[in-house]
């Protein structure tokens, strides 16, 4: 798994790129002949042969055999949504405020709520049409309760679009939450670790 520090380094190209020194194309016949002889005698062909043979002997294979091996994804990767529960009690975090439904720019979240016996709002229907979702992350950012977040599950398949995706599929299983097996969620939707340093004071001086 990639650590957050590596992930936050966005300047990957620093120092990695350099300009290749390409000589001018030969124009006269004599220059062409010189190029032919230098290429034939300097043994550039054999350098090529040596390099591929070296790679074969080193056997440093870079293939990822996908279903068996997977590449690490970023810690704040935005894949299929998850619905979180509170620790210990296992209560659903979603308070049915409807902000995610409101902010969703591709209009793929649909929710229905009612007032339950204790005069609290309760979610009765909650679906995300993953065929429409563009995984922008607004729903997770706007959620005041860290209820809807983006998880790391990026492999989805189904025979029907209607299977994408019910509330129950996204919800953390009840027993896992009660047993305390769910850590505080670090992925997308949660506050990033360095948030304090990034906070700027509101410009009040008009």
């Amino acid at each position, binding site marked *: 798994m990639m650590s957050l520090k590596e992930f936050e380094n966005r300047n990957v190209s620093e120092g990695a790129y350099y300009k290749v020194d390409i000589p001018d194309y030969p124009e006269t016949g004599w220059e062409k002949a010189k190029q032919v002889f230098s290429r034939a005698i300097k043994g550039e062909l054999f350098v*090529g042969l040596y390099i*591929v*043979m070296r*790679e*074969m002997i080193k056997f440093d*294979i*870079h*293939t990822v055999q996908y279903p068996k091996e997977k590449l690490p994804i970023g810690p704040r990767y935005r894949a299929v949504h998850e619905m979180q529960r509170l620790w210990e009690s296992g209560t659903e975090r979603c308070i049915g405020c409807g902000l995610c439904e409101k902010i969703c720019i591709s209009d793929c979240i649909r929710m229905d709520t009612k007032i339950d016996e204790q005069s609290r709002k309760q979610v009765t229907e909650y679906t995300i049409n993953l065929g429409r979702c563009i995984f922008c992350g607004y729903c997770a950012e706007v959620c005041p309760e860290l209820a809807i977040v983006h998880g790391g599950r990026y492999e989805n398949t189904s025979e029907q679009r209607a299977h994408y995706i019910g509330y129950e599929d996204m919800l953390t299983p009840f027993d896992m939450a009660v047993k305390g097996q769910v850590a505080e969620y670090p992925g997308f939707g949660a506050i990033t670790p360095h948030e304090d340093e990034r906070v700027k004071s509101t410009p009040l001086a008009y």
Partner: protein
Amino acid sequence: MEVAYIIETLIKIVVILLVFSALAGFGTYFERKILAFMQRRLGPMHVGPFGLLQIAADGIKLFTKEDIVPTNAVGPIFKIAPVITAATAFMAAAAIPFLPQFTIFGYTVHPIVADVNIGILYILGVMAVGFYGPLLGSLASSNKFALISAARAASVFISYEVVTGLSLLAPLMMVGSFSLIDFNNYQAGGIGDWIIWSQPVAFVLFWIAAFAETGRTPFHLVANDHEIIDGFGTEYSGMRWGLFFIGEYANMFFISFVIVLLFLGGFGDGSVLGALGFLLKMSFFFFFFLWTRAAWPDIRPDQLMWLCWKVLMPLAVINVVVTGFVMMF
């Protein structure tokens, strides 16, 4: 005696056909694996252990694919072209001794179908006829890319064939025979007797020409995937395309045998060690075909013609003249 001879020859033909058809299949497997390793990939891995059954999967696929003859293609020529390639490749094998003669159940076997006295001439001639496969196939298939491929096939053909013939002339002058068995016996004395030491230039020239002969990578311009789709193979599907493939790979094996027999001592004195060495040397040349494919870029048709006519042919002629003078004095 006569009946026994005919039966023996028929058995040899069947064995060579079966072995080299299978080897052509394994050749594709080796090629994919070795290219993959050289490019830090794994190659076929999923069908069978280490992807070994990939050959079977490819075979089933080729055999069961729909056989399409395009509307505007010239049917009979289109259909016969792959057969020409595959058939001539195997016909060339008739004059190649694949092993030294050995005795099995008291019966001496000569692992050569016909030790004709014009062996090498016959092999080169039949292999040259093999170029009619791509040429006719691409002309008949009514496809622009195939047409370009036909033009390239013709230009490549007239270029390299001169080099092949002239480069072989010098060793032929030394040995004084066209038979590959005679070539082998000439070098039977050990490594010091190999013709490569007395004819290094001819060896290199013939080796370069072999790449053009088999259409392998530096000269892979008749069916260059990234320029002209698959050239002559663009319109072919199923086993017709497969026959082109078998012909190409069988040709690679046979030309490897021929190079070793001509320049590197063949099977030497005919002992078991010599036979093993023969196969090892042959394997190296086959491996080199794959090695260069991983390492080298393709060149343009005009560059190939330039190379063959302006560089290799003069070198071959000089080589012949020098050999002649050395032999005279």
